[in-house]
C-alpha cells in the first residue's frame, strides 16, 4: 500500500466520514488516493482557512474529531488561524498537511514552510513524518491526542515522498505515547469535599463552560442542577449545555452577559466552575470577580485549575464522570437536610425580571436585535433541530443574548480567538455533520466578507445553510468602542451597507439572496430563506448606531456595568 492510501485507511478506521480541504503540490499523492476510492467524503473548500473552520464546525456539531487537509507552504499557513481557533476553544481537530520531499526539507524549497514549527504553540502535538513506517502509528496517535484529555488540534505534516512510498500497512491497536496520560478518574476525596461545600452554601452558582459540551457531560450537568436545585450561569462557549428555557439557567455572564448572571456570580458564596476557565471576558477585573465566593473548580485540564483564580476545592478529571459522581455525593449529603436557599433563588429571579436584555425599537430603522429575535422565533416553529453559528462581534453577542438553545452542540462560535469569518465555514461543516438540521449562520458584514468565498462550497457541495448578515455597514463592535472609548473617532471602521450587494453576491455563488431594508420585510425574507432548499444569504440592513448592552468595560467589575440607555440603575 502507498503512504497516501494509508492516510485514508487511517481516516476510515478512525470513523471519519467527512474531511475538508484543498489539494496542492505536496499533498497531491493523497488526493490521488482519494481519487482511487475512499468512504471519506471530501468537501472541497475555497480557502484552507475555510476548510479548517469547516472541520471545526463539523467537530463542534458532531462531537467527533474534525479533519482538514491542505498542501505545504501557503496551504499550511492558511490553516494556522483555524488551528489557533481550535486551540483556544478546545475543538478536536486533526490537520493533515503535505510537506516537500524529505530530501528537500531544510532547503527553502518551493512551498516549503516549517509547518510543525509555525504551529508549535497552538497544537497539542504535531508530527513531521519522514519515514513511511511511522505513518500508521502517527495517525493513530494524532486522533488519540486530539480527542482525549482536554480536546484540541494536532498537526500531521507528511513529506511527499512518504505519501508516495509503498509499505505493508498495519494499523496499530494501541497508541505508544508514554508521556500522554490525561486524567481518567476523579479523586473521591475532592468530590466529597465539593459535595460538603455545596451542602452548606447559601448562595451557590454553577459556572458552566464549553468543557461541559466537549466532555458530553450535559446530561450529567442537568441532572445535578435538577437534583440539587442549583442555579447556573452558562458561558458563551457553554451555551446549549443546559436548556436556555430551564428555570435555573441564568444564561451568559461576562462583558456582554446579563446583569443577573454577573450579579449571580458577584454575590455568590460558592462558585462551582465546571469546564470553564475564568476567562477575562467573563471575570472582568479579577479582584472584583465573585469576591465573596469559595471556588470549586472542575476541569479535565489540571493547568486550568488555579491558573487565574485560586480554587479552594480543585477537582481534576473527566467531567462526565465527575458530575455524575458529584450528583450522587450531593444527594447523599443532602439526606441530612438540604439548606433553605429560597431567598437566593428569589433574589436571582428578581434580578432576572428587573434586568432583562432590552433595546429600544425605533420606527425608522431596523434594530439588529429585532432581526435576531425574528430568527429565534422562526427557529422555534421548525420541527427539525436548528444549529447556530456566528462570527465575532456585536452580532455574536446579540445572538448569545437572544437566541434560545435547548440542546447541546447547537451554538457554535469562535469564543476565545475571536476569529472573524468563522461563522460561514463553521456552518458548512456543521451541516456536513448534521444534514438533518437547519444550520443558520448569524454573521456580521465585516465577518462575512472574510470568508464568503466558501459560499461556493456550500452551493456546489450541496450543504445548504442560511447566512443572515446583520449588516450595519460597520465593523460594529470596533465602532462601538470608538464611540464609547475613543471620542467617536471612527477610524477605518466604515464598510457601507451597500458594497458588496450581498444578495447579488449570493446569487453569483449559486445561492438564494435576499435583502431586508425594514422590519416589514424581515419575517417573509427569513422564512423564504429557510424554505429555499438551497444555501441562502439574507442581507439585513440594520441601524449602524445600535450598541451592544449591557457592557462591562474591559478590566472593570460587574458593578460597573454600563446599561442600555434608559435602564433602571441599581447597585447590588
Amino acid at each position, binding site marked *: 500500500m502507498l503512504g497516501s492510501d494509508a492516510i485514508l485507511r487511517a481516516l476510515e478506521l478512525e470513523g471519519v466520514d467527512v474531511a475538508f480541504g484543498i489539494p496542492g503540490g505536496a499533498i497531491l499523492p493523497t488526493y490521488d488516493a482519494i481519487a482511487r476510492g475512499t468512504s471519506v467524503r471530501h468537501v472541497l473548500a475555497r480557502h484552507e482557512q475555510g476548510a479548517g473552520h469547516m472541520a471545526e464546525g463539523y467537530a463542534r456539531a458532531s462531537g467527533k474529531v474534525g479533519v482538514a487537509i491542505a498542501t505545504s507552504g501557503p496551504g499550511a499557513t492558511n490553516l494556522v488561524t483555524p488551528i489557533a481557533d481550535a486551540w483556544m476553544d478546545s475543538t478536536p481537530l486533526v490537520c493533515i498537511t503535505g510537506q516537500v520531499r524529505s530530501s528537500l526539507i531544510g532547503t527553502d524549497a518551493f512551498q516549503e514552510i516549517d509547518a*510543525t*514549527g509555525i504551529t*508549535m*504553540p497552538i497544537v*497539542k*502535538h*504535531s508530527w*513531521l513524518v519522514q519515514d513511511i513506517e511511522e505513518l500508521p502509528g502517527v495517525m493513530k496517535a494524532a486522533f488519540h*491526542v486530539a480527542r482525549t*484529555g*482536554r480536546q484540541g488540534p494536532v498537526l500531521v505534516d507528511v513529506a511527499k515522498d512518504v505519501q508516495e512510498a509503498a509499505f505493508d500497512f498495519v494499523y496499530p491497536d494501541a497508541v505508544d*505515547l*508514554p*508521556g*500522554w*496520560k*490525561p*486524567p481518567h478518574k476523579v479523586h473521591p476525596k475532592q468530590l466529597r469535599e465539593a459535595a460538603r461545600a455545596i451542602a452548606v452554601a447559601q448562595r451557590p452558582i454553577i459556572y458552566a463552560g464549553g468543557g461541559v459540551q466537549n466532555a458530553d457531560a450535559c446530561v450529567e450537568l442537568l441532572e445535578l442542577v435538577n437534583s440539587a436545585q442549583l442555579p447556573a450561569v452558562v458561558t458563551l462557549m457553554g451555551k446549549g449545555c443546559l436548556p436556555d428555557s430551564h428555570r435555573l439557567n441564568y444564561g451568559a455572564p461576562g462583558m456582554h452577559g446579563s446583569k443577573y448572571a454577573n450579579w449571580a456570580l458577584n454575590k455568590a458564596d460558592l462558585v462551582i466552575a465546571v469546564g470553564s476557565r475564568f476567562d477575562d471576558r467573563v471575570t472582568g477585573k479579577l479582584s472584583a470577580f465573585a469576591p465573596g465566593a469559595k471556588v470549586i473548580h472542575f476541569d479535565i*485540564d*489540571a*493547568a486550568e485549575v*488555579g*491558573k487565574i483564580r485560586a480554587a479552594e476545592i480543585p477537582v481534576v478529571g473527566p467531567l462526565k464522570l465527575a458530575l455524575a459522581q458529584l450528583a450522587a455525593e450531593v444527594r447523599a449529603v443532602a439526606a441530612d437536610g438540604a439548606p433553605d436557599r429560597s431567598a437566593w433563588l428569589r433574589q436571582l429571579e428578581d434580578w432576572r425580571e428587573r434586568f432583562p436584555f432590552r433595546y429600544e425599537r425605533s420606527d425608522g430603522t431596523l434594530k439588529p436585535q429585532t432581526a435576531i429575535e425574528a430568527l429565534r422565533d422562526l427557529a422555534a416553529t421548525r420541527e427539525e433541530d436548528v444549529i447556530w453559528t456566528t462570527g465575532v462581534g456585536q452580532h455574536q453577542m446579540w445572538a448569545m443574548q437572544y437566541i434560545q438553545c435547548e440542546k447541546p452542540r447547537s451554538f457554535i462560535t469562535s469564543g476565545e480567538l475571536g476569529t472573524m469569518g468563522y461563522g460561514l465555514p463553521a456552518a458548512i461543516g456543521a451541516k456536513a455533520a448534521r444534514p438533518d438540521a437547519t444550520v443558520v449562520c448569524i454573521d456580521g458584514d465585516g465577518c462575512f466578507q472574510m470568508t464568503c468565498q466558501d459560499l461556493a462550497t456550500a452551493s456546489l457541495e450541496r450543504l445548504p445553510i442560511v447566512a443572515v448578515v446583520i449588516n450595519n455597514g460597520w465593523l460594529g463592535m470596533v465602532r462601538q468602542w470608538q464611540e464609547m472609548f475613543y471620542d467617536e473617532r471612527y477610524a477605518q471602521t466604515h464598510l457601507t451597507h451597500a458594497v458588496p450587494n450581498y444578495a447579488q453576491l449570493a446569487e453569483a455563488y449559486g445561492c438564494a439572496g435576499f435583502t431586508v431594508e425594514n422590519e416589514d420585510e424581515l419575517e417573509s425574507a427569513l422564512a423564504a430563506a429557510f424554505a429555499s432548499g438551497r444555501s441562502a444569504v439574507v442581507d439585513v440592513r440594520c441601524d449602524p448606531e445600535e450598541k451592544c448592552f449591557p457592557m462591562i468595560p474591559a478590566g472593570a467589575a460587574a458593578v460597573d456595568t454600563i446599561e442600555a440607555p434608559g435602564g433602571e440603575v441599581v447597585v447590588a
Partner: protein
Amino acid sequence: MSTHTISVRLENKPGALARVSQLFSRRGYNIQSLAVGPTERPDISRLTLRVDCSEHSLEQIEKQMHKLVNVLRVTELRPDESIERELALITVAVPAERRAEIVALSQVAGARVADIGRDAITFELVGRPDQVEAFEELVRPYGVRDLVRTGRVGLRRPSAGGRTAPTVQV
C-alpha cells in the same frame, strides 16, 4: 519570586526540546539555565531547568509541561534533597611569571588545568554551582578571557529517601 530547579524526563524525539523551550517563552517564564543530555535510557533525555518565578508560576510551569506529549515526568529538585553540579571552562589571562601563583590557587579551589597557552590558562571546574561561582570570582581579577558554564544538572539524593513522586500527579 525565587529560583527553582526543575528536572524533566523527556522523550528523545525530534522537536521535544523545542516544545519545552517554546512553552517557557510563550508563557513568559525566564530560563536562567537549561542543560540537556542523555539518561540511562537512550530513548529518554533529562532536562535540568533553572527558573526564576513565583510558587504559583512554578505550579503552572509544571502543569503546562505535563501536557506536552513528549514530557514523561516533571520534578522540582529541592536544594536540601538533591545534588546539583555544574561544569565550567574558564580561560584566564596569565603572564608567565604569575602561572605558579594562579595554578596553586586553582588547586585549592578544586579546579584543574585543561590547557596552558603562552599567556593564558584554561581551567576546568566541576562542582556545586556556588563553588563554580566562587572560582569565577577568584580568577576574575586576573582577567577572564572566555568562560562557559554548562548550567546545572541535578538528581535527587538517594539518601533523601524513596523515589520522588512526580510533582504533578496525573
